[in-house]
C-alpha cells in the first residue's frame, strides 16, 4: 500500500515539475532553439541547395579576416583595460572597512542601469574633434594638434572598457571577498612586503576569478554592437556592426547568417572555456580554503 502511495506521489511530483517548466521550455523552443538552428542552417544554403559558398567568400575576401582580427584585438584591449582598473578597484572595495564601501559598490554598479546607447553618447561628446579629451591631450602635451578618437578602434576600445568595467569589478569583488584576509596578514607577518603579498598570495588565489572575468569581458566585447556602432561607425567596423550592415543595409541575409555563425562560434569557444573554469573552480574551492 505504502509503496503504491509513494509511487503515485512521485509521479505527481513529475507532473508538477513538467507543468512548471512547460511555459519556459515552450518559449525557449519557439523563440531561441528553432530560430538559432534555422540561422545556422540558412548559412549553409546557397541559392536553394546546400553549399559552403558563403564561408568560402569569407575566406577569399581578406576584409573579413581583417574584421575578425580587429574584433579580437578590441577584445584583447578591452580585457586588458578592465583588468588594469578592475583588479585594483575590486580589491580596494573588497578590503574597505569604511562605511562608504557599500556606497562605492553602488557607484560601480550604477553604469549597468544606464543604456549602453546613452553611455556611448557620453563618449561621443568627450571624443569629438576639439572635444574635452582632445583638449586635455593637447594641454598635457601628448599630441600637437586636435585629435579625434571618434571613428577609431582606440576610441571604441576605451569606451567599451568603460561599459564593461562594472561586470569585471563585480566578478572580482566576489572573488576577493572570498579570500581570507588572514592569509595576507600571515604573509606580511612572515616579512613579505604588501606588493609581494598581493602578487604572490592574493592574485594566485584569485586566478580562476580573474580568468573567468576576462573571458566574460572578452566574449561581451566581440559581441558588442551599440558602442562600436556609435563610437566606431563604419570606419572602425567590428564583427557585430558588419553583420548588422550586411543584413539591414545590404539585405544579404544568407551572408549575414554566415558571419553571425562565425561570431557565434567564437563566443561559444570563449564561454566553453569559461564554463570549464567555473566548474573547476567549484570543485577546487573545498581544497583551496
Amino acid at each position, binding site marked *: 500500500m505504502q509503496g503504491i502511495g509513494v509511487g503515485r506521489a512521485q509521479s505527481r*511530483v*513529475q507532473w*508538477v515539475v513538467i507543468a*512548471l*517548466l512547460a*511555459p*519556459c*521550455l515552450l*518559449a*525557449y523552443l519557439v*523563440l531561441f532553439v*528553432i*530560430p*538559432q538552428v534555422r540561422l545556422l542552417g540558412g548559412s549553409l544554403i546557397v541559392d536553394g541547395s546546400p553549399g559552403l559558398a558563403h564561408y568560402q567568400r569569407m575566406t577569399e575576401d581578406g576584409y573579413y579576416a581583417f574584421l575578425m582580427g580587429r574584433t579580437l584585438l578590441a577584445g584583447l584591449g578591452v580585457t586588458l583595460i578592465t583588468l*588594469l*582598473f578592475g583588479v*585594483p*578597484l575590486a580589491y*580596494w*572595495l573588497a*578590503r*574597505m572597512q569604511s562605511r562608504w564601501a557599500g556606497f562605492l559598490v*553602488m557607484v*560601480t*554598479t550604477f*553604469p549597468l*542601469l*544606464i*543604456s*549602453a*546607447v*546613452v*553611455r556611448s*553618447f*557620453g563618449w*561621443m*561628446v*568627450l571624443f569629438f574633434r576639439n572635444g*574635452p579629451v582632445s583638449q586635455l591631450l593637447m594641454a598635457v602635451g601628448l599630441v600637437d594638434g586636435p585629435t579625434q578618437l571618434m571613428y577609431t578602434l582606440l576610441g571604441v576600445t576605451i*569606451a567599451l572598457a568603460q561599459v564593461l*568595467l562594472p561586470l569585471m*569589478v563585480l566578478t572580482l569583488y566576489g572573488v576577493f571577498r572570498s579570500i581570507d584576509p588572514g592569509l595576507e596578514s600571515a604573509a606580511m607577518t612572515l616579512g613579505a612586503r*604588501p*606588493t609581494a603579498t*598581493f602578487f604572490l598570495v592574493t592574485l594566485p588565489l584569485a586566478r580562476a576569478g580573474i580568468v573567468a572575468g576576462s573571458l566574460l569581458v572578452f566574449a561581451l566585447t*566581440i*559581441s558588442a554592437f*551599440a558602442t562600436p556602432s*556609435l563610437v566606431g561607425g563604419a570606419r572602425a567596423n567590428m564583427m*557585430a556592426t558588419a*553583420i*548588422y550592415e550586411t*543584413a*539591414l543595409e545590404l539585405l544579404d*541575409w544568407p551572408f549575414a*547568417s554566415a558571419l*553571425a555563425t562565425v*561570431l*557565434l562560434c567564437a*563566443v561559444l569557444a570563449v564561454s566553453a572555456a569559461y564554463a570549464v573554469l567555473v566548474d573547476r573552480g567549484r570543485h577546487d574551492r573545498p581544497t583551496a580554503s
Partner: protein
Amino acid sequence: MNSLRTPFGATIALLSVTALLYLIIPIAVVLIAPLGETGYLSFPPKGLTLKWYQAALADSRYVDSFLNSLWIAGWVTVIATLTGVPAAYALSRHAFPGARALEALFLSPLILPTLVLALGLALWFNRMGFVAGTPRLIAAHLVLCVPYVIRVCLPVFRRFDRSLEEAAANLGARPLHAFVLVMLPVVRPGIAAAATMAFITSFDELVLALFLADPARPTLPVTIYSAVQLGFEPTVAAVSGLLVLLGTALLLILQWLNRNASQ
C-alpha cells in the same frame, strides 16, 4: 595593507579612484552637457539653462517612444516573471535527469551575441508571417529577460530553507499554499529584483528593437540611437540625461529591495 601610507596601498587607491572617475565621467557628461545655452552640444557647457530638458520633455518623438518602451518593458516583465519564476523553482527544488543541461540551456541566451539572436528571430518571424512590430518585440525580449529572471531567482530559491516548506506540507498545506504562504514572503525581494532586472534589460535594449520594432513606433533606445547618428543636438542629450536620472531612481529602488532582502 590598504593603508595609504604604503606605496602599494597608495597605488591601489589611486588606480581605484581613477577607475571610478572613468566609470562616472561619461555619464556625468550626458547629464551636464545639455545644460548649455548653445544650439550645438559642447562640453563643458556654455551658460546654464534647462530649456533643452524642457524641449526634450515636450518633444513627442521622445515622449511617444518612451511610453512605447515602458509599455513593452512592462509586458516583458510580467511575462518573463511568470515564465521564469516557476522554471527556476522547479530547477531549485527537484533533481531530475538533465536538470543541469536544462539550466545551461535556460541561461545560454545571456552569453550569446544579441545581434545573432536578433538575426535568427527576424528571419524566423518573417518566415512565420509574424510581422506585428510590438508583439514580436515583446516576444523577442523574453529571450533576454527570462534568463535574467532565472539567474537571479535560482540562488535565492536554493538558499531558502527547504524544511520550512516541508513543515508546512506536514501541517497539511498543499504545495501551492506552501509556496504562497511560506516561501513567497521570504523570496519576494529576490523575485522583485529579478523583475526589475527584466524591466531594465527590456527598456534599455537596442539590437532586438532595431531589427524587430515597428518602424512607426520605435523604442526609446532606437530613437536615441538614430538621433545621435544624425548629429549632436542638445535635445537628444537632454533625453539621455533624463535616462541617467531614471537610472539613479532605479538604483535607489534596487538598494531598497536589497536592504529588505537582507533583513
